[in-house]
């Protein structure tokens, strides 16, 4: 059995990757993926917590979080489509009509 701390550690790494990706990548789809990674880091923590504390809650939380992530991706893609339809770009650096 893998110790909960290892799982949580993986979570830290994933969260870091996700966060760094979120602000370093221009492509909105990639950023969306990074967000997914961050959410997965949280899922790992829930799982680790469930293991550590021996409660089921963590598993449930993780399952629901996955559902949230799915919804988020769906909504995200839809919104990005609408961005694309008006500005023909999904680069976050180029969609800057709104600023200052």
């Amino acid at each position, binding site marked *: 059995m893998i110790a909960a701390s290892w799982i949580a550690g993986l979570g830290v790494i994933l969260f870091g990757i996700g966060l760094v990706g979120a602000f*370093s990548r221009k492509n*909105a789809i990639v950023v969306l993926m990074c967000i997914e990674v961050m959410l997965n880091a949280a899922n790992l923590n829930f799982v680790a917590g469930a293991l550590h504390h021996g409660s089921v809650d963590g598993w449930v939380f993780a399952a629901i979080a996955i559902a949230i992530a799915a919804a988020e991706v769906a909504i995200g893609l839809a919104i990005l489509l609408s961005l694309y339809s008006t500005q023909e770009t999904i680069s976050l*650096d180029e969609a*800057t009509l709104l*600023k200052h």
Partner: protein
Amino acid sequence: MGESKQEWDRLLYLIPFLAVVPYLIIQGESSTDWAWLIVAVPFIIFPIIAIAGQIWNGHDTWVNRFKEGGIIALGALGLSLSAGLWLIYDYLTTQPSLRFTPDPWSWLSFDVLTYDGEGWSVAASGFDFFGLGLYLDPLSIMLLFVATFLCFLICWFAVGYMTTDSINDNSNHRFFAEFVLFSIGMFGMVLADNFLWLFIFWEIMGLCSYLLIGFYYWKKSAAYAAKKAFLTTRVGDVFLLIGLLMLYDIYGSLDFSVVFDDPSTGVGGAVVSAAKLQTALLMLFIGAIGKSAQFPLHVWLPDAMEGPTPVSALIHAATMVNAGLYLVARMVPFVDVANGGVAGMEDLGLIVAWIGGITAFMAAAIAFVQNDIKKVLAYSTMSQLAYIFTGLGAALWLFNTGNHEAGALVFGGALFHLFNHAMAKGMLFMASGSVIHEVHHAHDYLHHEGDDSEHDHASHHDFDAQDMRNMGGLASKMPVTATAMMLGSMSIIGIPLIGGFWSKEVIIGKTWYAYFHGADALLGPALLILATAGMTGFYMSRMWFMTFAGEPRNELVEHVHEATPWIKTPLIVLSIMTALGGFGLAVYGAVEFLSAEADYLSLHGHTLLEQIIHEVEHAFLPEDMQLRYVGWVTILLAFIIGPIMAARIYGGALKEGEQAIPLVHWLTSLSGKFGSQNVDDLANSELAEALQQRLYFDDLYEGILARTIVPFAAFAAWFDANVIDGAIKQIESKSVLGSIQIRRVTTGSARDYILMAAIGTLSIFALIWGVNA
């Protein structure tokens, strides 16, 4: 003269006004109970004239029937005069029980905190209120007479003078309203029973002086002169105000009755410090200097002649300028050590005398070169007032050194000179006004024929009806005026037996007396006024000769004639007053009466003849040999040297065939006998130039102000807009800059937002870690 008969009809309107006092007398009322009428009636009348005049401006009835308010003003002043005479009569017959009436009401009541060494508490006594009451003594009685009498007469004069000048059309209501307002100030100041109200009325006079000097407001010179007069006197007034504050702090009251009761005891029984009191009195004196146009605040008076001539006559010669003298005269109880005054204030008297002496001499010198008839009179006024100041200064010194008797004599003499001078100078100004008026009319008459009005305007401006160089030989054309002016000049010069002689003699004599009795510092003023006596003889004679004697220097003199009926009457009345009144009063002991040494005007138990001989003997042959010489020198200078010098330069007989009334005619012929001396060299000298420029005082003041106050004010305005407000604006503009900067942070790229939030989060963690570590 049908026209003038119609004019006199207007006087019917005066009857209701003049009937009031007789009615009250019949009702058995007391004059002091009704003294408020003197001030109140003009107070009610002046807004009526102003507003009615503005509403019915140019309306036929208003112009012709009411003389644009002149008749109403005359009525009000007539009522004041009658009430004043009633009061004076009562005083002269029943005093001293009438000395003063208590304050009928408290105008301002209040409390003051005092410190008793341990703590503060509301003062139990003293410092409680200001009121307004009536205060009568010989001084105020004399001034009341001068004020009411001259106000009435000069108003009478003005009705003729002002309403016949086309330039005043539709603005005379302004004149009369302001004139009446002025009379409120003068009457009130004379009657008020405390220093505060004295100051209040004093300021009202200042206002009217301003308004009336600026009567021809469109003229730059008039507006400038008005401003100058107001501001210069304001400087004095402010010091006067400080003096009042100090007096109030010392005595806890400004009521004459309280203060004069025991001048050496202050509020709460404190002993009055001579140094403090002297400072207070000096402050008051600065106020007096401003009002009476003494050096160094004298610059406004000559310019004040921009006002209409009746104004010059009343305000700037006969009444308002006396306010300063009145104020100094009121200081006597403080310094009179024989009657409980505070010792150790000799310097006050010396300062007053020196200021007087300097001004007297300086003004007389400047008067030498003036060609404007009113300017000569203005400087003469200044000089004569300075005489009185010198006398009062000597009196203050004598009182303070314990020499009560001599002090009282010179004090009385000074006040008597005030009276004589007011009468004479009022008349002189009216006479000069008569001359100016008629010359002006003659000029208009000459230039009107066939001219269109535009040209008229131009010539109107070029011609100076006041310049004596345009006159000469008017004696035959204007007999009444010439005589009046002659008598007035004589009085001012101090020709023996005529009004001013009696008082001037006393002033000069007693100033020298004070010098002989220890006031070494008074030598200067004594010499100065002695010299001035001779100079007065010169410039007054010069004025008269230039105007009335010799041959006409301008064609228009031919067309001059005394036509206006309202003008002559006051001249005649005042001529009599000047010629005989001064002598008469001197005989009746005016000097003793005015110095409060005697309770009544009387012959002191002698017969009239005895008293006349006594007075004459006393004047010409005083017992003190030193004073006898002084007296003779005075007479020599004033009577002989001055006029003869003037006659040598300016005198001349009338043109062949012209006739004036006998005395005048004789005088002009006499002046012609001294030949004519050419003084062109002297007239072109630097000294003459300096005198023409009024010894550069005006330039000096203006220069200083222009170089200090004006840039300073501009700097202050700049400072306020750019530094104080600039700081606020800086906050605003810096905020705006900051705002633009901070908005740049919002780049529009979501990546940056995330990055910034991440950095923010990290720094927050670092911070928390730091705080907790």
